[in-house]
Structure formats: C-alpha cells, structure tokens
C-alpha cells in the first residue's frame, strides 16, 4: 500500500514537471495547469497551434501515445466547441490532458494526424458527430454515419429522438464497383432465383432496374420519402 502511494506521488510530480516544461516552452499559449482527481489539464489558447504543441509533447516530453480525442459542445457559449486530447507516455506512464477551443462559425482546426496516426479515426469521428473539420486530414469522411447525412448528432441542438432523413438508396454509399456486371447479383428485385447472375439476361436486367426506380418514386410521391411505413400498390 505504501509503495503504491509513493508511485502515485512520484507520478503526480512527474506530470506536474512535464506540464511545467510544456508551459515553459509555449509560455502564454498554454494556461496554468488545472488539477482535478489527480489529472492535469492544460488549455491551449490557439487551436491553430495544436499540432506544434502536440509535436513538442511527443518528441520532447515523451507522450508517444494519443489515448483519445473527444469533443464537447458548449452550446450557448462562445467558442462553442472544446476539443480534448488525452496524452500518455509509455516511458513515464503519465497522463496529460490538452484542451483547445474552436468557434462555431469557423469550426475548423489543423489535424494532428501528422503527429500520431491514431488521430485519423478520432478526428473523423469528431467531424462526423460534432461537425468540426480538421484541416490537412488525409481522409476526412463521416465514419459512423453514412456519407451525405445532413446533421451532426452529438451537438446539443440535435434532439435525442433524432430527425427524419433521407436514407441512401442502398446500404452502399456509392455504386458497388462491379454493379451491373454479368457476374453480380442485383440488389432488391423479386427473389434470389431471379437475381442469380447465371440465369439473368441483360435486357431484363435493365427493365427490372427501371421498374425498381419507378416504384421507389411512387413510394416517395405517396409518403414524401423514399422509405415508408409499408409497400403501396403499384400504379395500374
């Protein structure tokens, strides 16, 4: 038990020292360390300089592992979003938390994927859920929601019950690479026997596709959306 206490104290000192070094390097950019439940948080005043701070933390202070990036929506406050970085070092086994703020109009900041590769998916998730864009990100697409989804669900002004949206036509975000080809089954249609590639004839394929599109249009006219409470009778 005593030993555990000494370790915890040594860690706390080490964390404080690392925070001091970070503060010494960037002076006014970094706020005074705040401590809560043994965890140290630092605020970075300018989100634009985040990669620089992270690079220093990784190279000089040994924070080689980016645990997590999360985002907070301070709805009603300005700046609206807080981006929170959790850093950890495998050498010294200390955590540190960096926070920075991004305004609603801009909703953009530079990426840290250049520092840690793991930031890739974390940043995509923040973009998907909060709508904060990361400049320089190699592949900033939605990750949990589908491409083309119009809202940012974790924002505080998005209701818990959700909002109705158009669903994409098929589960894919874009046509499958070999769709329409001779060896590919057609999604939807009558039954698996009719869709089976070996029995299909190209002309009937086209007819079927047209019939499906028309039917979808009918459903949309009847219900105001492409998916509905159930099938409707096709037009005579």
């Amino acid at each position, binding site marked *: 038990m005593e030993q555990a206490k000494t370790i915890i104290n040594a860690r706390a000192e080490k964390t404080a020292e690392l925070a001091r070094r970070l503060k010494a390097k960037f002076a006014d950019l970094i706020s005074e360390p705040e401590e809560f439940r043994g965890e140290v948080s630092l605020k970075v005043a300018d989100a634009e300089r985040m990669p620089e701070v992270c690079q220093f933390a990784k190279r000089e202070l040994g924070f080689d592992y980016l645990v*997590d990036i999360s985002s907070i929506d301070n709805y009603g406050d300005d700046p609206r979003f807080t981006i929170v970085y959790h850093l950890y070092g495998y050498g010294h086994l200390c955590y540190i938390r960096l926070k920075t703020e991004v305004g609603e109009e801009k909703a953009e900041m530079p990426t840290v994927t250049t520092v840690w590769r793991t930031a890739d998916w974390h940043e995509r998730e923040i973009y998907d859920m909060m709508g904060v864009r990361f400049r320089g990100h190699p592949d900033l697409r939605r990750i949990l929601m589908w491409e083309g989804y119009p809202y940012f669900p974790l924002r505080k002004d998005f209701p818990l019950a959700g909002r109705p949206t158009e669903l994409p036509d098929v589960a894919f975000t874009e046509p499958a690479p070999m769709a329409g080809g001779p060896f590919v089954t057609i999604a939807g249609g009558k039954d698996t026997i009719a869709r089976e590639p070996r029995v299909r004839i190209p002309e009937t394929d086209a007819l079927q596709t047209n019939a499906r599109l028309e039917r979808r249009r009918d459903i949309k006219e009847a219900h105001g959306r492409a998916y509905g409470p159930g099938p409707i009778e096709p037009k005579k």
Partner: protein
Amino acid sequence: MADVRDIRFKEPMARTAEALGNSCSTDGELEELHGDKMVLNMGPSHPSTHGVLRIILELDGEIITKATPDVGYLHRGDEKIAENMTYTQFIPYTDRLDYLAPLANNVAYALAVEKLLGIDKQLPPRCQYIRVICCELARISSHLLGVGALAIDLGAMTVFLLTFTEREKIYNLCESLTGARFTTSYTRIGGLSRDLPPGWVEQCRKFLHEVVVNIDETETLLTRNRIFVDRTQSVGVISKEDAIDYGLTGPNFRGTGLDHDLRKTQPYLVYDELEFDVPVGTAGDSYDRYLLRIEEMRQSVKILHQCLDKLPGGPVNVPDMKIVLPPKDRVLTRMEELIHHFINVTQGVNAPLGEIYFGHENPKGELGFYIYSKGGGTPHRLKIRSPSFVNLSILSKLLPGHMVSDVVAILGSFDFVMGECDR
C-alpha cells in the same frame, strides 16, 4: 493460356509493390494478362467479420493492394444517450459495448463515475475483490471466444465447440451472480447490485479447475497444429512503432513485444495486491496474439484463485446513502432513507463539476471513459474510448500485401467487437 503467377516475395509490402507495379505497366501484353484490379466488398454481413465490419478490398489477383475499413453499422448513439440520463441509468448501456465481456464494461464505467465522485479509493474491500473477479471472468470469457472464433474461421471447428462449452459455464456463473447471462448490469455507482449468492465461490472454483483443462486441450489442438501455424505465423505482423502510433492496446499491443498493462502500470481496484504476469509476444503476428490470449487466460485463472482465497467479508457498497440506494426495508420505514432513495432515483448522484478520464484494461484493450460534468446527475459529455474502434484503424495499413484468406486470420486474431467499436 495465361501464365500462372506465383508469389515471388514472401514479404507482404514487397508483394504490394509488385502488384502495384504490374497494374501500372505500359506493356500492352502484360496489361491484357493481368487485367484490372478488382474491388471486393467484404462484410458487413460476413461470418469472419464478427459482427458488422465492412472492408472494401482492392485486389490484384488474390493480393490485397488497398483496404478501406468501414464502420458504423452498429452505431446506436450511446454517447448521446448518456447525456440524457443519470449515471446509474447508463449502466445497462455499458453491457452492450463489448457484449462478450459485459461485466468488465460495468466495472470500468462504475470506476470512472466513482473517480469523478472521488470515492474510487473508498470502495469496501469486498466490493473491490468481487469486481476483480468479474473483470477476470469477463477476460476469460472474451478470450475463449476470441480463440474459438479465430480457430473456426481457420477451419478448426472442434476448438470453437470446446471453448464455447466453457463460456457456457461462465454464463451460468453470471446468471447466478447477476440474474442475467449477457446483460449483466452488475455494478452500481459506489458498489454492486448484490453480493455473491451462497455457494457461488465453490461454483467458481469448480469452473476454474475445469477451464484450465479446457485451455490445455485447446492448446493441444492449435498451438502445434501445422495448418493453424502456417496460416497465422508471419501473418498480420505489427511493428512496435506502428502499435504505438496507431494507439493499439490490449493483447494486440502486447503481441508486438511491448509491455503495457493498465492493471500493472495504473493499478486500480486491488490489482497491486495480486500476483500475476503480463505475457508479451515477440513477433507481433496473428500467432503471437493467439498465444498471448491463451496465456492471459491462465493468468486470469491465477488471479481468480487468489481473489477467491483472499475474498474478505463486509459490505459491498460505500456507506453513503447519497450515492448508493439505501436498503429497501429502511426506505419503507424511515424518512431520511426515503428521501435519499427518491433523490437518487429521480435526480441521480450529484456529481461535482469537473472532468476525468479513466482507462480500464478490458479484455480487448483500454476501455476509457471521459466524463465532463457540469454538476448534477447527468454528464454533460461522456466519451467512450473503445479499444476495438482504435485497434481497427490499423487495418488499412496492415492488410495490403496479404492474401484474401489472410484477412480472416488477421481479423480473427484482432478479436474486436463491433458493439464497442460503433457504440
């Protein structure tokens, strides 16, 4: 007749380079022979993706040149849900994160909230021991599935049946402990929903004696199995640098030879009083990850034996009625307890202003909860750092250069859960 190309380079990256080189070739004849690259859509409903992971593979022949994982098919918005309910109400949702080890998630979440409340060091010893037992049972359960599923994906059906027989026993233990087999919701903020039922310790001991035999049998079937070894060794090799850079955790991280286990480095509960080893791999391939899980199960059995031996008596909840629900008989007879009960149920535990991050060594890796509280009974923001989500992000780097059949071996050895990945 087209010539038959064989694999001239064993190194995956060299194979990719070769494949890419061929497709860019200006030689007309070669072009005709090798043709276009093909895109193969694997998942979201594919038995070896263990859930609803979708990977878009770009293939040159049978060699993968590009892999794009696509997640989110099981997205339920757990983080949004958490912002709209009390801390206690969210416990059942944690069952549905890593649904193969719900007990471990329950413990991780409870510890995170307790850290926010500042009571994580005041938990009664009995509670701490029971929580460790829960975590380690969950680890065995999860690893048994991981090993069994890897084996069945590679064609070894017997192992799957063996490991699932043992998992069934763990589920029986869960059932008598919590009342549910899968959706355990066992922990509460500041304690547990109930104490161990009578006779449970003996049942657990009996299980531990049986599971060791089972693990040995599994090893007999797999560890020196020529087919299994051929399909997993040198497949999906992760370097130490990549493991850190991509933020891998858990057995996938330790498989590379790096030694980091939150139970040792950031001891929580009573892990610092228990004796166990943290196994590490050497090569970082699929085979190492398999061996590591086997050894971790043995260590978990060791921990469980110690816990059952040392299990202290006493209460399982913190003696603070503002955090845990008061006993029912007192609620019905006393004013004070009635008020606490009412406030606790309707408004939740009154958390202080502040923010905490708690990382827990789950069977799959570091499950972290970041809670940002503005006071009151609900979190302003609750972020779940799930190990499966982060572990999967390395796939686009790891898969190119491998054959399609290797994908199965790699995914199986990664042992991810989409419920946790998509949240």
